[in-house]
């Protein structure tokens, strides 16, 4: 699974990042790589069983804490 993911990312790099380098669009390259690296790190962390909190409960708790909600 991990290898598959790495292969996927390598493919994305080949298809997305390499053409940018060829066309010397450095700014695009930097932004795209930063996002991609973030994605890669996150997915690797998930693969290695680091538990991220689920987003919805976090937002729910936050909103409920700061606002008194009308009952539904």
């Amino acid at each position, binding site marked *: 699974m991990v290898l598959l993911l790495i292969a996927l990312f390598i493919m994305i790099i080949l298809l997305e990042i390499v053409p940018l380098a060829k066309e010397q669009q450095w*700014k695009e390259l930097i932004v795209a790589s930063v*996002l991609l690296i973030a*994605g890669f790190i996150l997915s690797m962390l998930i693969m290695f069983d680091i538990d991220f909190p689920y987003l*919805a409960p976090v937002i729910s708790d936050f*909103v*409920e804490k700061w606002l008194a*909600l009308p009952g*539904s």
Partner: protein
Amino acid sequence: MALEKGRINSTSLTMLIFGFAVGSSIIAPPGRGAGTDAWFAILIGITEGLLIAAVFLLLSKRFPNKTLVEISDLVYGPYLGKIISILFLCYLFHLGSLVLSDFIEYLSSLFLIRTPPIVLVAAMSLICVSAAKKGIEVIARCAVILVYVGLFFYLLTILLLLKNFEIKYLQPVLTIPAEQLLWAAHGAATFPFAETVAFLMVLPFLTNKRDAVPATFKGIIFAGLVLTIDAVLNIGILGASEKVYLYPSYYAITTISIAEIITRVEIVASLLVLAYGFLKIAVLLYGVSLGAAQLCSLRSYRPLVMPVAVLMSILALYNFPNPAEYIRFNNKIYPVYALPFQLVIPLLTLLIAVIKKPDQRDVNSEPKGRRSPTESRRR
């Protein structure tokens, strides 16, 4: 700086907005908080949605060739403007992941129970990536085809369902307390009608800017009617048990059985729902990538589509731990959570723009747009 060269006409905008608004809402129907009066809640929701839409349409009218990112740069200045843009893009990003996880949940709880969700996410987001990369024009043209095909099957489904429809389940009409009704209506307005605020990233590419208002309104009203009919059908078929289903529309369609020949059509319906979801995710993905590219003043948004989709997919897997949180978020939290992005940001931008620079055009022709924010704020 022309990041997008494609242009869309008003018909495809209407279709796109229709597909966008129906999108994931047909699997998780809005207005369910109102019980048997859900259809009425949706009708009120349309009105509120239109009022919210009026705000961003007015904003778009003031800056006809600019996306929200560029508008906020102009209105707030370079720094504050960037912060506002980032907030807005974060919302679009999160919305995209929410829609994605809606579909993943739908597929993985009904059909593909043992398939790892990551596979489903990847499949869905890859299609959206390819669409978003091709530009808004392609998405819009897809919308026209998909909406027509979808509508054909939708009407067919309604016809087939009419046999099982019991009007008595809908009676008595309008018995729930007004507060609950309005809350459900507000829920319906924020999801899905006011989510069309994402079109602030798309409207500048309309060929004829004057069509923006009628096209958007048409799309929203049209989608609202479809959702209303859907709500009526769900309650009319499933009756009191409607409220316990996670996906009532799906279960309503499973009751179709015409002479035991035309049965099990729910898969076809699900495919169409998937197609509308594709439109919604593609538009959001496009919006986020375009916005991010404009934010960093890049020459092209296309390289950003794939990385954004990767991040969106990861977030989609980490949205809801279980259905309980899903319900809690959708019913209670989302109507509040979405409001700053759907209403406050466009409204604030509009007001500041009006105060800062006295208009060259007359934007005051639509007094509705002015009144709406205060009304919605009171809720």
